[in-house]
């Protein structure tokens, strides 16, 4: 018996049916067609599937699709304002804060959640704010710098 769910994703009303044991990540990727969230582990260790659920950063692999009724979800696909990239996205490109890019959507979600709570984080606060996301390419240096640059721009 599938769960019938009405939810909001990136501002759009979305309706879907999913199996009771199906993760939000699988729903996004396999039913809604939003493949920006990635499965790196499926156990909440890598953060590649990070999304913002009712304002809270979560690993979508650890949330059930069936829990989504009446909730508001933000994914990487909704981060840019149309053709205008979010400052975090722009600084990731400008600062070469990605190499392979598989972890990038998760990092951007986590950085977005961090800057909403703390618009002026120290380097240490950024490092701990992003500690739930694994990157194997960059050594994090350019990611931290991109978040610092975006935060500065967003503060104006």
């Amino acid at each position, binding site marked *: 018996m599938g769960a019938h769910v009405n939810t909001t994703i990136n501002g759009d009303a979305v309706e879907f049916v999913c*199996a009771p044991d199906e993760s939000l990540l699988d729903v996004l*990727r396999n039913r809604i067609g*939003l*493949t*920006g*969230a*990635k*499965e*790196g*582990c*499926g*156990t909440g*260790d*890598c953060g*590649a599937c990070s999304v913002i659920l009712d304002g809270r950063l979560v690993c979508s692999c650890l949330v059930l699709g069936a829990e989504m009724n009446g909730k508001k979800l933000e*994914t*990487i*696909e909704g*981060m*840019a304002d149309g053709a205008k*990239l979010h400052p975090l*996205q*722009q600084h*990731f*490109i*400008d*600062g*070469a804060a*990605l*190499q*392979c*890019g*598989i*972890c*990038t*959507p998760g990092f*951007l979600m986590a950085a977005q959640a961090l800057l909403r709570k703390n618009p002026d984080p120290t*380097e*240490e606060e*950024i*490092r*701990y704010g*992003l*500690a*739930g*996301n*694994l*990157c*194997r*390419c*960059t*050594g*994090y*240096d*350019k*990611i*931290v*710098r991109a978040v610092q640059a975006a935060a500065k721009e967003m503060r104006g």
Partner: protein
Amino acid sequence: MPLDQDLEIKKFKVIGTRVRRPDGVDKVTGRARYGADASAPGQLVALVLRSPHPHAIIKKIDISKAEKLLGVKAIITSADLPDLTGGDRGMLDILENCMARKKVLYDGHAVAAVAAIDATTARAALKLIKVDYQVLPHVTDVDEALKPTSPVIHDHIFTDGIEPKPTKASNFNKQAEYGHGDLDAGFAEADVIIEKSYKTEQTHQGYIEPHSCLASVSPDGAAEMWVCTQGHFVYRNQCAALLGLDANKLRVTASEIGGGFGGKTHIWTEPLALALSRKANRPVKLTMSREEVFRCTGPTSSTSIDVKIGAKKDGTITAAFAELRYHGGAFPANWAEFGAMTTWACYDIKNCKSLSKDAVVNRPKTAAYRAPSAPQSCFAVENTIDEVAKAIGMDPIELRIKNAAKEGTKSSYGPVYGPIGIGATLQAAKNHPHMKAPLAKDTGRGMACGFWFNFGGQTCVDLNVTPDGTVTVAVGTMDVGGSRASLALAAAEELGVPYEAVRVIVADTSSLGHNDMTDGSRGTFSSSMAAVFAARNAITVLRERAAKTWEIPVGDVEWVDGEAKAKGASRGNLAPLTLKDLAKGAGGTGGPIAGHSEIVADNAGVSFGTHICDAHVDKETGKTTITRYTVIQDAGKAMHPSYVEGQYQGGAAQGIGWALNEEYVYGTNGRLQNAAFLDYRIPVCSDLPMIDTQILEIPNPHHPYGVRGVGETPIVPPLAAVSIAVTNATGVRMHHIPMSPPRILKAIKSARM
């Protein structure tokens, strides 16, 4: 047309600038499509059944119940993958690794695979497959595997490199020797001799994207595969050969790749997906779980290494010897030999030798991991060098500078070096502010230098000028982290057009000739060379078209800053023809304008780096914190400095993880106990400091711009640099990597006793 590979010293217009990468927007918006992001109409989901035993005979596989489950469309075992290798043992090993045949050889070895209408059905089917195993004794440690008492894994392995060749099968698959001079004489000259043994544990490349492919085989034998890989041409060739497909009918498209570091140079599940698709006559998607990635793909060798170095009081190293024992997992490889070749490569030593012993063990088949085998040998050598320095009372960096290889040095593995950067990186380290910065309490500083060969290989590039005068470039060597930007820079530099006027893609296997995979730090080195040549060939065409337009000899046309210009005073009235003009008129002057290049890029140019590390050790808990880290490396020429820095920083971070935390933990039952990122802990953002970089540019004489590969060398020195820093912080020499807190506490405790 043969083009000159040699360096031309010139002033660059766009090379060396920090442009935005062409795939950047797709990757920050979630649009970029990786291995698991593609789907096909009617696709099935495939899962693999894997052995729980490290070593066992497969007596029987019963798939009858699973086959009857509603929604199961195909099940394969090794019976569906007949041996078509024609006696090629290496190819048979690849096939046997993809699917066990008579025996399972490691925990996680595939024994059957299922394609079903969804994952739930496929999972249920796996549970219905009954495998009858006869469990055999196993061995997972390299030193144990080399003992005569060890269980023998393969009955066809008789040690290569030993005369006479043994007649008894063993796990010792290869011995090799490198070096020169007279060791006995060298050690006799020494005032000090240091002899030590070291161990390193097995680590995984740890790419964040699990392996994934989407395979579709039609009844007429035509097939397509979408896959995350470092080399789609190699995947094409191997899958076609193993499955009896014509290579021209298997079109492989490389997805964006979510990290590889050597782990995506081998085929693993791809032949299974193709065989399932052929059997089910439907597209099949096969994505590994993280647990599968750890249990059955990737890892590098665990090692055991002995080093002996003799030196005079003035710091001259008179003799050096190393014995290196590495394993290839369950299949024979030559990783110890690679380690032996790198052992003394940084130094100019009159008498040196390395002896390698390669073994097989009941662990997953090891794959290349970024400068494969070099970090381990570097760890052993550099620690011993550090001890020699302490024993003779010399600054370790001065000892290294004194013995550093230089242009003209005969390397320990054979070739005579051209211009190289080891001396320059050491000198830069010596002068670096990091070297002089004060150290906090319980903090030690270590430095180490490392080497990697680099590789060139086969590459194809097609450059096409579109009718509006913009340029497309197709390359077959996979972009694993930004090389598309470098190729666009190369094409723009040559053609004299803006970077933004060039768009680079990675083309599929039906669009270009064979390309080697992106390994050996060859991606940017070889494909930028091919891009330069393709652009120069296009310029020849452009000059011909201008000559035709003007009705003058082509020899009187030159290409300057993106335009054809007629040479000579008498032709001053001919207005230059731009790329746009020529593209627009192409239909009337001979058709589309293009340049092609198919090359073997030789002389990749060896690479050296020196790292400096500050490590704080909490002596109560054994926890190590890296407080400062500096990478200095020769790039030849940094085409895009940001991505060169990124390679330096990323390699250092991987090496720091290897040095401090990462390790495969096997139980006495031969099963991997930490096949998850929670228990196999790679560095996270809060574990690391900023990683400072210094790019040196000692041009490679055999690349038009002087480029050397940069990707692999950065992982070579960290194990050594971090361990020497820990040694200096604790006063205890660390002989075993990773230096996890329990291992550090144990070392401190033993030293006190």
